[in-house]
C-alpha cells in the first residue's frame, strides 16, 4: 500500500492557493451528471452535502438519526476557533496553525493544519451569513473568548450551544438543497457496507432502519462524515448512536486506518455513578476559566464533605504542577493529572474516581450573579444530573472519552486509499495529530465540509467519467448479500447476553488498558481479551426480534460487533507506538510524569491496512516532515 499524501509543493502559506489553481475543474454543465453520496449529516457531512449540491452535483445524503439536525456535532458546547484576530491580541493564521500543531504534539501534517487555519476565517463569515447567532458585544460586533488553554481570544461561541447553532446553520443549508430537489436525504438509514468497483468507491449498502430493507446506492464518489469511534469505550461523551461501522466497513474494503490509538480524554465530565450508567456527560471546558481543580491532600479526608476540608489541606494540583497554565492546561495533561491523583487514592465521590472543580473563589471574586451569567446553564445541567448545587458545593468531575483523533487515513485532498472515497471531519485522521485543542473540532468539520471537499472532489471527478452505474453490478450485489448474511448471523446466534452486555465488557477492557495511560503489558492483555470477547459475542449474543422491522437491538449488535474489532486495532496501534504523545500516553515513556515523545522513531502516521479475516493487519507509515515549526517539547509548566 502506498501512502501518497499529495501535499502540494511550494511555501507553506501558498500550498492551498496553488493547489486550488492546479486542481482540475468540472464544467458547470457537467456537474449534475455526477452523483456523490455523503454519509453522515453532522458538521462535516451536512456542510459537504449542501456545498456540493450548491455547486450542482447530484447529492444523496444518509444519516442514522430521524433528522440530519440531530448529529452529535450538536452537543459541542464551547466554541469554534478562527484566526480572525478581532481582539487585536496577536492572533494570526500562523499562530493558530502553530498552536494546533503543537497542541497535537507534532503528529499532524503541517500543510493540512495550515490550510485549516487559513479557512477558519471563512467559516465564521459563512456561518454568520447563514444566521448563526454568535455571541456579540454591545456594539453589535462578534464576541470572542479564550478557550482550551489558548493564549489569545479566538474562540467564537453561541452561549454554551455553539455546536448546536453551527449544525443548525449547516442543516438549514442542507434542508434548503433538499427542498430544491438537489439533495436526496435518507434519514434512518445506516451504512452497512462500501461498494468498490474496479478499485474505486462507487456506492454503499444501507439498511432502512424502519423497514429493515437492505438497499444499494450507487454514485461516482462517496464521502464519509460519520464521526469518531469513541463509543468503543462504551462510556463516552458520544451520543448513544455514534458508531464506527461506516469507517470500519471502508477499512475492511481497503481504506487505511490512520492512528487508531489517538483518543482524547476530556478532563471535565460528570463522574460515573454506577453500572447502570449509559453515557457520560461533558461539562464545558470553559468552566476551567473560573473553576479551580483540587483534591484533598490526605487520603483520610476524601470521605469528608468538601466544606469540611480546610484550605491548607487541599491540593490544587494543576496550579501546583503547571503554574503558567494552571487550571487551563490542555485536555490530555489535565486528564492525566486527574487520573494520577485518583490513582494515588486521593479521588473523591463514588469509587474515588472524581476531583473537585470549585467555584467558590470565583463566586467570592465576581459575585454569584456574574458566575451565574457565565455558567448558569451549565450549573443547572450539573444539578439536574447530580442533584448537587455547584454554587454551594464544588462540582465533581472526572475525565471521559470525548473524541478520536484517529480515523481513516486521507491525503491532502481528503481522499482515502480507496480512490473516490473521501473522509471528512472526525472520521478522518487528519488535522489534530495526537491531541485536539478545544474549539478545533467544529473548525475542522466545517473546514472539510464547506471549504475543502467542494474543491477536491471536483479534482477527482474531473478525471472520472460519469456512467450512472446501477446496483446490478456484481460487486454491489455481493456487498448487499454480505450485509444480509451478517444480519442473518447476528439474529441466528440467539445466545444469552445482550449486545449491551458485550459493549460494556469491551468498554471496560478498553478503558482499563487503552485509556488515559497505556503500557505494554496492559495492551498485550487487552489483545488477548478482545479476541476472546469477539468469539463469545458470535456464540452468545442475543438480539431478539427480526431483521425486517425497526429493531434497535439489532442495530446495536451490528455496531458492537464492529467496535470489538476496532478496539483490537486501537490496542495494536497503541502497542506499536512506543512513545508518548498527546492523548496517547505510554507509561514506559515519560519524564517527571510528562509525556515523552520519540521524534526520531515515531514522527509518522501509522496507517493500518486490512489483510483479511484472521490475518494480522499491516502497519504502514507516512513520515511527517516539519519544515516550518521546531519540534519542541510540549511544556505547559
Amino acid at each position, binding site marked *: 500500500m502506498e501512502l501518497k499524501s499529495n501535499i502540494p509543493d511550494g511555501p507553506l502559506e501558498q500550498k492551498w492557493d496553488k493547489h486550488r489553481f492546479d486542481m482540475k475543474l468540472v464544467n458547470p454543465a457537467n456537474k449534475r451528471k455526477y452523483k456523490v453520496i455523503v454519509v453522515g449529516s453532522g458538521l462535516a457531512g451536512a456542510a459537504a452535502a449542501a456545498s456540493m449540491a450548491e455547486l450542482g452535483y447530484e447529492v444523496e445524503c444518509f444519516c442514522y438519526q430521524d433528522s440530519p439536525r440531530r448529529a452529535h456535532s450538536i452537543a459541542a458546547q464551547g466554541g469554534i476557533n478562527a484566526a480572525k484576530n478581532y481582539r487585536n491580541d496577536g492572533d494570526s493564521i500562523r499562530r493558530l496553525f502553530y498552536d494546533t500543531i503543537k497542541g497535537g504534539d507534532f503528529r499532524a501534517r503541517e500543510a493540512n493544519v495550515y490550510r485549516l487555519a487559513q479557512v477558519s476565517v471563512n467559516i465564521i463569515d459563512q456561518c*454568520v451569513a*447563514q444566521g448563526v447567532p454568535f455571541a456579540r458585544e454591545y456594539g*453589535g460586533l462578534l464576541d470572542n473568548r479564550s478557550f482550551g488553554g489558548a493564549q489569545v481570544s479566538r474562540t467564537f461561541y453561541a452561549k454554551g450551544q455553539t455546536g*448546536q447553532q453551527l449544525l443548525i446553520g449547516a442543516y438549514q443549508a442542507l*434542508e434548503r438543497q433538499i427542498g430544491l430537489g438537489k439533495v436526496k436525504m435518507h434519514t434512518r438509514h445506516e451504512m452497512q457496507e462500501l461498494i468498490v468497483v474496479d478499485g474505486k468507491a462507487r456506492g454503499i449498502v444501507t439498511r432502512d432502519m424502519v423497514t429493515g430493507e437492505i438497499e444499494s446506492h450507487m454514485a461516482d464518489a462517496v464521502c464519509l462524515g460519520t464521526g469518531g469511534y469513541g463509543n468503543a469505550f462504551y462510556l463516552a461523551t458520544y451520543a448513544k448512536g455514534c458508531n464506527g461501522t461506516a469507517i470500519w466497513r471502508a477499512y475492511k474494503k481497503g481504506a487505511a486506518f490512520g492512528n487508531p490509538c489517538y483518543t482524547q480524554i476530556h478532563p471535565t465530565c460528570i463522574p460515573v455513578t454506577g453500572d447502570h*450508567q449509559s453515557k457520560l456527560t461533558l461539562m464545558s471546558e470553559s468552566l476551567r476559566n473560573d473553576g479551580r481543580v483540587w483534591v484533598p491532600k490526605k487520603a483520610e479526608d476524601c470521605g469528608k464533605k468538601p466544606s469540611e476540608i480546610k484550605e491548607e489541606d487541599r491540593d490544587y494540583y494543576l496550579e501546583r504542577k503547571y503554574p503558567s497554565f494552571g487550571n487551563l492546561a490542555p485536555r490530555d495533561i489535565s486528564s492525566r493529572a486527574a487520573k494520577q491523583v485518583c490513582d494515588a487514592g486521593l479521588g473523591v465521590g463514588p469509587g474515588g474516581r472524581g476531583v473537585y472543580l470549585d467555584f467558590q473563589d470565583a463566586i467570592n471574586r465576581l459575585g454569584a450573579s456574574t458566575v451565574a451569567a457565565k455558567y448558569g446553564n451549565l450549573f443547572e445541567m450539573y444539578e439536574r444530573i447530580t442533584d448537587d448545587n455547584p454554587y454551594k458545593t464544588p462540582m465533581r468531575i472526572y475525565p471521559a472519552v470525548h473524541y478520536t483523533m484517529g480515523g481513516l487515513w486521507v491525503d491532502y485532498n481528503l481522499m482515502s486509499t480507496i480512490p473516490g472515497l473521501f473522509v471528512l471531519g472526525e472520521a478522518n485522521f487528519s488535522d489534530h495529530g495526537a491531541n485536539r485543542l478545544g474549539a478545533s473540532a467544529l473548525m475542522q468539520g466545517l473546514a472539510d465540509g464547506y471549504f475543502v471537499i467542494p474543491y477536491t472532489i471536483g479534482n477527482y471527478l474531473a478525471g472520472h467519467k460519469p456512467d450512472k452505474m446501477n446496483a446490478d453490478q456484481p460487486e454491489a450485489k455481493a456487498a448487499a448479500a454480505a450485509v444480509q448474511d451478517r444480519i442473518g448471523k447476528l439474529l441466528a446466534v440467539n445466545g444469552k447476553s445482550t449486545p449491551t452486555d458485550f459493549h460494556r465488557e469491551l468498554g471496560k477492557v478498553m478503558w482499563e488498558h487503552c485509556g488515559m495511560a497505556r503500557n505494554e503489558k496492559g495492551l498485550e492483555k487487552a489483545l488477548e481479551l478482545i479476541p476472546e470477547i469477539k468469539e463469545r459475542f458470535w456464540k452468545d449474543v442475543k438480539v431478539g426480534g427480526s431483521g425486517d422491522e425497526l429493531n434497535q437491538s439489532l442495530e446495536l449488535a451490528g455496531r458492537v460487533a464492529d467496535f470489538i474489532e476496532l478496539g483490537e486495532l486501537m490496542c495494536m496501534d497503541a502497542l506499536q507506538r512506543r512513545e508518548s504523545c498527546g492523548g496517547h500516553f505510554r507509561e514506559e515513556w515519560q519524564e517527571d510524569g510528562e509525556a515523552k515523545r520519540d521524534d526520531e522513531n515515531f514522527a509518522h502516521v501509522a496507517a493500518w491496512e486490512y489483510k483479511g479475516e484472521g490475518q494480522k493487519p499491516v502497519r504502514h507509515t507516512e513520515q511527517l516532515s516539519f519544515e516550518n515549526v521546531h519540534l519542541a517539547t510540549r511544556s505547559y509548566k
Partner: protein
Amino acid sequence: MEKHLNLTLQVWRQKNAQDPGGFKNYEAKGISTEMSFLEMLDVVNEGIIKKGEAPITFDHDCREGICGACGMVINGRPHGLRERTTACQLHMRSFNDGDVITLEPWRASAFPVLRDLLVDRSSFDRIIAAGGFISAPTGSAQDANCLPIPKDNADRAMDAAACIGCGACVAACPNASAMLFVGAKVSHLGLLPQGQPERTSRALDMVAQMDAEGFGTCTNHGECEASCPKGISLDNIAMLNRDYLKASLTYRPEVESGGF
C-alpha cells in the same frame, strides 16, 4: 442519597404504523435514583431482550438534552413533569417507590408512530426545507463583522434558535399545533439582518407547509411553552403571526414578465 425504587410501567406498545397498538405493563425493580429515565428503560429492556421479547423502542441519541431525539409522554406530560427537561435529563429521583408510570408516544397525525414510543418527525424537516433558512451559498459570505447586530437582537435570535426540534410543543398542544416550532425559526432568522430578504417568503412557505403536514392550529393555550425543554417563548408565535399577516398583505405574486 441513592435509593432503589420498584415501579410499574404502563407502556404503549405498537409494532408498526399499521398496528393499532395498546398498553402493556412492565415491572421495573430495584431502580437506582441515580439513573436517568432512559437508563431505567435500558434496564427494563435488557430484561425484555433476555426473555426473548422485543424491547421497548424509543428514540434517543445524545442523552444530554441537546439533540432532540428523545421524547415520550411520561404521565401525561411530554418529557415528564419536570420543567425545562428532556426525557434523557429526567432522573429517577423525581419518582417515588411504587409509582405507576404511563408512557405514550407523541400523539399527532403529523407525527405518525413508527413503533412503540418512536414517531416520525420528518414533517419538521420539511417545514424547514420549505423556508427555514437563509440562502447563503458557501463561499458567498462577506466578512463576519461587516454587519453589526444589536446584542439584544442577537441574544433573542439565540433564544429562539435554541429549539431542539424534539416536538414536545406539538405533543403538549391540545390541538397538536406546530406554531411554536415554526415561530421559533421565523423569529430566529427574522431577528437578524441576514434574514430580512427572505422574511416574507419564509413566513408564507413555512406556514403553508405546516398546514399541509396536518398540524393543528394555535388557540393560545400556552402548553407548548410550558412543555418546551428549552423554554422557547410564546412571543415567537406572536412574531410568526405578525410576519405571516404582513407577508400575506404585501407579497407580490410571481408573474411571467413585466410586473412591478
